[in-house]
Protein backbone atom coordinates (compact mmCIF):
# COMPACT_ATOMS: atom_id res chain seq x y z
CA UNK A 1 0.00 0.00 0.00
CA UNK A 2 1.20 3.56 -0.74
CA UNK A 3 0.89 5.98 2.15
CA UNK A 4 1.36 9.75 2.34
CA UNK A 5 1.81 11.61 5.62
CA UNK A 6 0.81 15.20 6.39
CA UNK A 7 2.57 16.65 9.46
CA UNK A 8 1.20 19.91 10.83
CA UNK A 9 3.29 20.67 13.94
CA UNK A 10 6.92 21.43 14.71
CA UNK A 11 9.37 19.12 16.48
CA UNK A 12 9.68 18.65 20.28
CA UNK A 13 6.87 21.05 21.19
CA UNK A 14 4.19 18.56 20.12
CA UNK A 15 4.27 14.78 19.97
CA UNK A 16 2.79 14.85 16.44
CA UNK A 17 6.23 14.62 14.82
CA UNK A 18 7.23 11.66 17.00
CA UNK A 19 4.03 9.75 16.29
CA UNK A 20 4.31 10.45 12.56
CA UNK A 21 7.86 9.07 12.58
CA UNK A 22 6.96 5.96 14.58
CA UNK A 23 4.00 5.36 12.28
CA UNK A 24 6.18 5.73 9.15
CA UNK A 25 8.75 3.30 10.54
CA UNK A 26 6.08 0.72 11.36
CA UNK A 27 4.42 1.07 7.95
CA UNK A 28 7.73 0.52 6.16
CA UNK A 29 8.47 -2.46 8.40
CA UNK A 30 5.13 -3.95 7.38
CA UNK A 31 6.13 -3.67 3.72
CA UNK A 32 4.25 -0.51 2.77
CA UNK A 33 5.68 2.38 0.79
CA UNK A 34 5.76 5.71 2.60
CA UNK A 35 5.73 7.97 -0.41
CA UNK A 36 6.20 11.36 1.23
CA UNK A 37 5.96 13.33 4.44
CA UNK A 38 4.49 16.75 3.66
CA UNK A 39 5.15 19.46 6.27
CA UNK A 40 2.56 22.19 6.78
CA UNK A 41 1.86 24.95 9.35
CA UNK A 42 4.62 24.83 12.01
CA UNK A 43 5.45 21.35 10.67
CA UNK A 44 7.95 22.94 8.29
CA UNK A 45 10.35 23.48 11.20
CA UNK A 46 10.95 19.71 11.36
CA UNK A 47 13.74 19.90 8.78
CA UNK A 48 16.15 22.61 9.90
CA UNK A 49 19.67 21.25 10.12
CA UNK A 50 20.48 23.86 12.79
CA UNK A 51 18.52 21.75 15.28
CA UNK A 52 20.89 20.74 18.09
CA UNK A 53 19.05 18.93 20.91
CA UNK A 54 20.75 17.54 24.04
CA UNK A 55 23.00 14.51 23.35
CA UNK A 56 20.66 12.11 25.17
CA UNK A 57 17.62 13.24 23.17
CA UNK A 58 16.46 12.28 19.67
CA UNK A 59 17.47 14.54 16.76
CA UNK A 60 14.18 14.96 14.95
CA UNK A 61 15.52 16.57 11.76
CA UNK A 62 18.32 14.00 11.55
CA UNK A 63 15.80 11.21 11.95
CA UNK A 64 13.67 12.44 9.02
CA UNK A 65 16.84 12.81 6.96
CA UNK A 66 17.83 9.18 7.69
CA UNK A 67 14.36 7.94 6.81
CA UNK A 68 14.61 9.73 3.49
CA UNK A 69 18.04 8.29 2.69
CA UNK A 70 17.23 4.72 3.74
CA UNK A 71 13.74 4.37 2.36
CA UNK A 72 13.39 7.05 -0.31
CA UNK A 73 10.69 8.93 1.61
CA UNK A 74 10.37 12.48 0.29
CA UNK A 75 10.35 15.03 3.12
CA UNK A 76 8.67 18.11 1.70
CA UNK A 77 8.00 21.48 3.34
CA UNK A 78 5.31 23.84 2.03
CA UNK A 79 6.98 26.94 0.61
CA UNK A 80 4.47 29.52 1.86
CA UNK A 81 4.45 28.06 5.38
CA UNK A 82 8.27 27.84 5.32
CA UNK A 83 8.77 31.45 4.30
CA UNK A 84 6.60 32.68 7.17
CA UNK A 85 8.61 30.65 9.64
CA UNK A 86 12.16 31.22 8.43
CA UNK A 87 12.78 27.85 6.81
CA UNK A 88 14.79 28.28 3.59
CA UNK A 89 17.11 26.16 1.42
CA UNK A 90 20.00 27.53 3.54
CA UNK A 91 18.93 25.53 6.60
CA UNK A 92 17.32 22.50 4.98
CA UNK A 93 18.61 19.11 6.09
CA UNK A 94 19.71 16.55 3.47
CA UNK A 95 16.81 14.58 2.03
CA UNK A 96 14.28 17.37 2.47
CA UNK A 97 13.03 19.96 -0.01
CA UNK A 98 10.72 22.96 -0.22
CA UNK A 99 7.76 22.72 -2.56
CA UNK A 100 4.22 23.99 -3.16
CA UNK A 101 0.80 22.84 -2.02
CA UNK A 102 0.21 21.39 -5.48
CA UNK A 103 2.64 18.65 -4.52
CA UNK A 104 0.49 17.82 -1.48
CA UNK A 105 -2.49 17.51 -3.80
CA UNK A 106 -0.50 15.10 -5.99
CA UNK A 107 0.43 13.13 -2.88
CA UNK A 108 -3.24 12.97 -1.86
CA UNK A 109 -4.20 11.73 -5.32
CA UNK A 110 -1.48 9.16 -5.94
CA UNK A 111 -1.49 7.45 -2.53
CA UNK A 112 -3.90 4.90 -1.13
CA UNK A 113 -3.93 6.78 2.16
CA UNK A 114 -3.15 10.27 3.41
CA UNK A 115 -2.84 10.40 7.18
CA UNK A 116 -2.50 13.62 9.15
CA UNK A 117 -0.57 14.20 12.38
CA UNK A 118 -1.06 17.51 14.12
CA UNK A 119 -2.30 19.34 17.19
Amino acid at each position, binding site marked *: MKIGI*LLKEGPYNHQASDTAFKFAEAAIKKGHTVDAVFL*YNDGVTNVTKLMDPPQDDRNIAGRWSELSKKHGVEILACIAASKRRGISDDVLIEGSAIT*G*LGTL*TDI*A*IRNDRLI*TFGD
Partner: protein
Amino acid sequence: MENENIKKIMHVLRHAPHGTIYTYEGLEMILIMAAYEQDLSVVFIGDGVYALKKGQDTSGIGIKGFSKTFMALDGYDVEKLYVDRVSLEERGLTEEDLVVTVEVLDAEETGRLMKEQDVIIHH
Protein backbone atom coordinates in the same frame (compact mmCIF):
# COMPACT_ATOMS: atom_id res chain seq x y z
CA MET B 1 -12.45 5.82 -16.44
CA GLU B 2 -11.30 9.38 -15.80
CA ASN B 3 -13.31 9.38 -12.60
CA GLU B 4 -11.01 6.78 -11.11
CA ASN B 5 -8.47 9.49 -10.52
CA ILE B 6 -10.92 11.87 -8.91
CA LYS B 7 -10.64 11.71 -5.15
CA LYS B 8 -13.13 12.85 -2.59
CA ILE B 9 -11.20 15.24 -0.34
CA MET B 10 -12.80 16.91 2.69
CA HIS B 11 -11.34 19.84 4.60
CA VAL B 12 -12.61 20.29 8.14
CA LEU B 13 -12.20 23.78 9.57
CA ARG B 14 -12.46 23.68 13.35
CA HIS B 15 -10.56 26.72 14.61
CA ALA B 16 -11.69 30.25 15.24
CA PRO B 17 -9.99 32.77 12.95
CA HIS B 18 -7.00 34.93 14.00
CA GLY B 19 -6.17 33.27 17.35
CA THR B 20 -4.29 30.64 15.34
CA ILE B 21 -3.32 30.42 11.67
CA TYR B 22 -4.94 27.02 11.02
CA THR B 23 -8.07 28.34 9.33
CA TYR B 24 -6.12 30.78 7.16
CA GLU B 25 -3.52 28.24 6.04
CA GLY B 26 -6.35 25.72 5.60
CA LEU B 27 -8.02 28.13 3.21
CA GLU B 28 -4.74 28.54 1.28
CA MET B 29 -4.61 24.75 0.91
CA ILE B 30 -8.23 24.57 -0.27
CA LEU B 31 -7.63 27.25 -2.93
CA ILE B 32 -4.64 25.35 -4.36
CA MET B 33 -6.42 21.98 -4.29
CA ALA B 34 -9.39 23.54 -6.07
CA ALA B 35 -7.26 23.83 -9.24
CA TYR B 36 -6.80 20.05 -9.37
CA GLU B 37 -10.40 19.16 -10.20
CA GLN B 38 -10.91 16.79 -7.33
CA ASP B 39 -14.21 16.35 -5.49
CA LEU B 40 -13.66 18.88 -2.70
CA SER B 41 -15.86 19.69 0.26
CA VAL B 42 -15.39 22.00 3.22
CA VAL B 43 -17.04 21.45 6.60
CA PHE B 44 -17.17 23.99 9.42
CA ILE B 45 -17.36 22.40 12.86
CA GLY B 46 -16.96 23.90 16.34
CA ASP B 47 -15.24 27.29 16.38
CA GLY B 48 -14.67 26.84 12.64
CA VAL B 49 -18.12 28.40 12.12
CA TYR B 50 -16.78 31.66 13.60
CA ALA B 51 -14.48 31.92 10.57
CA LEU B 52 -17.61 32.71 8.52
CA LYS B 53 -18.94 35.38 10.89
CA LYS B 54 -19.94 38.60 9.15
CA GLY B 55 -18.38 41.94 10.10
CA GLN B 56 -14.81 40.93 10.94
CA ASP B 57 -12.43 43.89 11.02
CA THR B 58 -8.87 42.85 11.82
CA SER B 59 -7.23 46.27 11.45
CA GLY B 60 -6.89 46.65 15.23
CA ILE B 61 -4.88 43.46 15.73
CA GLY B 62 -2.58 44.03 12.74
CA ILE B 63 -3.39 40.70 11.08
CA LYS B 64 -4.71 40.46 7.53
CA GLY B 65 -8.38 39.48 7.42
CA PHE B 66 -9.59 36.70 5.14
CA SER B 67 -13.29 36.12 5.78
CA LYS B 68 -14.07 37.59 2.34
CA THR B 69 -11.92 34.91 0.69
CA PHE B 70 -14.66 32.41 1.57
CA MET B 71 -16.92 34.30 -0.81
CA ALA B 72 -14.39 33.64 -3.60
CA LEU B 73 -14.54 29.85 -3.15
CA ASP B 74 -17.54 29.69 -5.45
CA GLY B 75 -15.42 31.11 -8.28
CA TYR B 76 -12.94 28.28 -7.73
CA ASP B 77 -15.77 25.74 -8.09
CA VAL B 78 -15.63 24.90 -4.39
CA GLU B 79 -19.36 24.75 -3.86
CA LYS B 80 -19.81 22.14 -1.16
CA LEU B 81 -19.73 24.17 2.03
CA TYR B 82 -21.32 22.52 5.04
CA VAL B 83 -21.86 23.90 8.54
CA ASP B 84 -22.60 21.79 11.60
CA ARG B 85 -25.99 22.71 13.05
CA VAL B 86 -25.11 22.19 16.74
CA SER B 87 -21.92 24.27 16.41
CA LEU B 88 -23.95 27.15 15.00
CA GLU B 89 -26.65 26.90 17.67
CA GLU B 90 -24.26 26.66 20.65
CA ARG B 91 -22.70 29.92 19.48
CA GLY B 92 -26.04 31.68 19.15
CA LEU B 93 -25.52 32.10 15.39
CA THR B 94 -27.79 31.58 12.40
CA GLU B 95 -27.12 31.35 8.65
CA GLU B 96 -27.87 35.09 8.51
CA ASP B 97 -24.68 35.75 10.46
CA LEU B 98 -22.44 34.08 7.87
CA VAL B 99 -20.60 35.67 4.91
CA VAL B 100 -21.49 32.85 2.49
CA THR B 101 -24.40 30.58 1.71
CA VAL B 102 -23.83 27.19 3.28
CA GLU B 103 -25.75 24.02 3.80
CA VAL B 104 -26.48 23.37 7.48
CA LEU B 105 -26.18 19.69 8.32
CA ASP B 106 -26.95 17.48 11.29
CA ALA B 107 -24.01 15.54 12.70
CA GLU B 108 -25.32 12.29 11.25
CA GLU B 109 -25.41 13.72 7.72
CA THR B 110 -21.87 15.05 8.10
CA GLY B 111 -20.77 11.70 9.54
CA ARG B 112 -22.17 9.96 6.48
CA LEU B 113 -20.34 12.37 4.16
CA MET B 114 -17.10 11.79 6.08
CA LYS B 115 -17.44 8.06 5.62
CA GLU B 116 -17.49 8.50 1.81
CA GLN B 117 -14.21 10.44 1.67
CA ASP B 118 -10.84 9.25 0.40
CA VAL B 119 -8.99 11.97 2.28
CA ILE B 120 -9.98 14.13 5.27
CA ILE B 121 -7.77 16.97 6.49
CA HIS B 122 -8.52 18.89 9.69
CA HIS B 123 -7.27 22.44 10.03
